[in-house]
């Protein structure tokens, strides 16, 4: 356990707990207060208020709900698709594998962000669409990772041994091979979550994600643009939160990689 890992776990854990519990409190994040249009951080409003007098602390936590949910759900979707396709592609091999891999090459060459923008413009922009679209367009890396693992795992003796005992292919693949591919997948999932949160912020910033008055870090940033000189905290707070969250997720991915992969640890020690 490195300090980086401690920092990320406590930051993300704290953020998640607060984000989950915040709706239990009676305050409305969208309540407008004409007496407090924009106020700097104070004891009454920890993170200050925005141009409509709304409490930024409260709105940040509601924004955290969105960001974390987007992170979890879209990575969940991309895990489901990526791991399944990677497993099958690597396990079946041969022509099927070749076709899937070439398809992935094509998919990876698509400009994902523009695809997401297009979908959001065509369909009604909603947080549900954001999660699905990010999930559906970000599984390719995961699939490659899993496939590469499967290719090496399926040559190991215990796989042949499983077959020699008459285990069906689906048991061999999903029970015996799958767990061996999970270490890199967990790491990639953490990095993917950071990426998804960034994409959601960009979309909300462009007005194509979470719709006002509902708060998300992205639309809070967008909202702050007109007040950068007078109320810089309106931009700084969501900006810092996005940065810290994504950074923590990356640290967590890194830290887990060190914990899970004994070879990584050796290299790490010799470098430091």
């Amino acid at each position: 356990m490195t300090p980086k890992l401690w920092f990320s776990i406590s930051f993300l854990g704290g953020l998640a707990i607060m984000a989950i519990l915040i709706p239990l409190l009676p305050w409305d994040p969208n309540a407008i207060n004409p007496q407090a249009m924009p106020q700097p951080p104070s004891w009454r409003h920890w993170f200050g208020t925005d141009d409509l007098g709304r409490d930024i602390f409260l709105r940040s936590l509601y924004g955290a709900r969105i960001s974390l949910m987007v992170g979890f759900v879209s990575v969940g979707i991309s895990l489901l698709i990526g791991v399944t396709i990677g497993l099958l592609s690597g396990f079946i091999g041969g022509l099927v594998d070749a076709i899937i891999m070439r398809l992935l090459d094509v998919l990876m060459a698509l400009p994902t962000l523009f695809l997401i923008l297009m979908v959001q413009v065509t369909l009604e922009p909603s947080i549900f669409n954001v999660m699905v679209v990010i999930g559906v367009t970000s599984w390719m890396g995961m699939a490659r990772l899993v496939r590469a693992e499967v290719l090496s795992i399926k040559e190991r003796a215990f796989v042949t041994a499983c077959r020699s005992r008459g285990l069906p292919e689906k048991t061999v693949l999903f029970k015996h091979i799958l767990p061996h591919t999970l270490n890199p997948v967990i790491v990639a999932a953490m990095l993917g979550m950071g990426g998804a949160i960034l994409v959601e912020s960009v979309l909300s910033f462009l007005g194509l994600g979470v719709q006002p008055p509902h708060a998300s870090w992205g639309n809070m940033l967008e909202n702050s643009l007109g007040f950068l000189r007078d109320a810089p905290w309106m931009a700084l707070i969501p900006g810092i939160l996005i940065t810290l969250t994504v950074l923590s997720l990356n640290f967590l991915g890194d830290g887990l990689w060190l914990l899970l992969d004994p070879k990584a640890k050796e290299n790490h020690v010799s470098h430091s």
Partner: protein
Amino acid sequence: MLVIRNLDVKFNVNGTSVHAVNGISYDISPGQSMGIVGESGSGKSVSAMAIMGLLPSSAQINGDIRFHGQSLRSLPEDHYRKIRGKKIGYIFQNPLAALNPVFTIANQMIETIQLHHDLSKDTARELAIDLLNKVKIVDAGRRIDDYPHQFSLGMCQRIMIAMTLSMKPELLIADEPTASLDVTTQKEILELMDELKEEYNMAMMFISHDLAVVSERCDTVGVMHLGHMVEMGTPKDIFTSPKNEYTKTLIDAIPKISF
């Protein structure tokens, strides 16, 4: 029981064809043991894997493999699966590598037992512990919940044998079962296998590079060299009047102690 006729296996490696097994034939009758000796790469394991139907798809197989008169090669995959393990057991050279490191022994044994017998998890576990006792794993009731890496190689091989026995196969293919073990463990494992072979009345196909080990316990010995079965006969014939040059080299290679 097992009839092999003109078994021929070729591998296609980057366009060139490698002839791993070149038209070998032999029979194994119930309760009989057949030894196959040869150096690494002589096609011993490949021919055994062909019987199991577990060669990679890049292998081109020709010839006849019949088990109880039934051609295994034309068998659909899900029927074949019922023969693997249940009728023909397989023991591997490196027992630690043949166990999945992420599951406990209990998990893997119960999975195997339940696959072939309609038993509850608890009954399967008891059966697994009985079998571990039978292969002389000390404190089997507790150690069954350990992971493969917590056992020595010799113990892992005992576990593999127990797992194979749980299916009561008619034929046991032992692919260099003691090659990765030290000599004293090798002796123990071989003795255990001899005992169990008697008890379960199994036929055995014993693959080894050690002519002495094979001759001690097999009714028939086949010598393989570069994919060919160069000589086959009773151990006595092979030892007393070897006809093939390679067989003579093998006999010469058996260490003799002189002071």
